[in-house]
């Protein structure tokens, strides 16, 4: 049968003024690489999971997107990552949430789906499972970027100026 792929790198209040032509070209180039590499995997007849992982890992390793390297910071100045994957054949699924030292969260989610009886593992438990699966573990600082660190400072400044938690509605940061 024919194959097809779609990818996203996040949504939000994006304005052409927010980025230079060079930055825009970088986004376009990375999206092009991710969608093309995933498509090649499909053309080779490999299972859809391999294509999804290939495309997402390219974006996890890019500092441009809020996933893996380039992830936003938590209030405490760390990175807590989440990921999930689902196959439409037997509705099988895997997910990890709140992980800090797994280099590729989408790969961890895939292993939860294929190597465990569970659908979702979280935090330290998910990390212990990833180590048992011999997935690559890294220091949380691997995911640091200056741009996201500055975004954290701005968000914290706004949080302090808001009068109540209810009114504190995040700006663009609320988008995944």
């Amino acid at each position: 049968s024919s194959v097809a792929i779609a990818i996203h790198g996040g949504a939000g209040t994006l304005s052409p003024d927010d980025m230079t032509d060079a930055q825009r070209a970088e986004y376009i180039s990375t999206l092009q690489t991710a969608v093309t590499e995933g498509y090649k995997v499909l053309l080779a007849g490999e299972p859809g999971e391999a294509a999804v992982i290939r495309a997402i890992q390219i974006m996890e390793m890019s500092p441009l997107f809020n996933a893996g390297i380039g992830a936003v910071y938590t209030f405490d100045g760390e990175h807590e990552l989440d990921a999930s994957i689902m196959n439409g054949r037997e509705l099988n699924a895997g997910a990890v949430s709140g992980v800090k030292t797994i280099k590729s969260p989408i790969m961890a989610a895939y292993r939860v789906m294929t190597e465990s009886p569970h659908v979702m593992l979280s935090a330290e438990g998910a990390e212990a499972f990833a180590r048992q699966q011999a997935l690559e573990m890294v220091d949380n600082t691997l995911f640091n970027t200056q741009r996201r660190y500055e975004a954290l400072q701005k968000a914290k400044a706004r949080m302090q100026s808001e009068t109540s938690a209810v009114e504190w509605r995040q700006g663009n940061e609320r988008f995944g």
Partner: protein
Amino acid sequence: TVGAVVLDKQGNLVAGTSTGGMTAKRFGRIGDSPIIGAGTYADNTSCAVSATGHGEYFIRYHVASDICARMKYAKMSLHDAANTVIHDVLLPAGGTGGVIAIDAGGNVAMPFNTSGMYRASIDKHGNVSIGIYK
């Protein structure tokens, strides 16, 4: 947040999503990305969906599985199901963001109710499309 949805040569639909979550999040806050049915869903009888946006709304409105359910039970097209949920259900409720979705026929829908979404696709005819803004 990043995501991918595919139709493979065996006719299977697969969806995946990965995220750093929300800036300045506290107290172990989790958004929709790892929640099956909210930020990620796939069913060969309808579609595969990956979402990005204000996670709390995507969880409460179980966006990814709602799109697939509208195809499965209401016999809506992929385009209509995805656009209805993003523009007519989520936006009036205050939920902002978008989805990428694909069906068993290799059709692709990428609706979003914000001013931009980083997105790319290669359809069943091999046509490439890449976009950032509306």
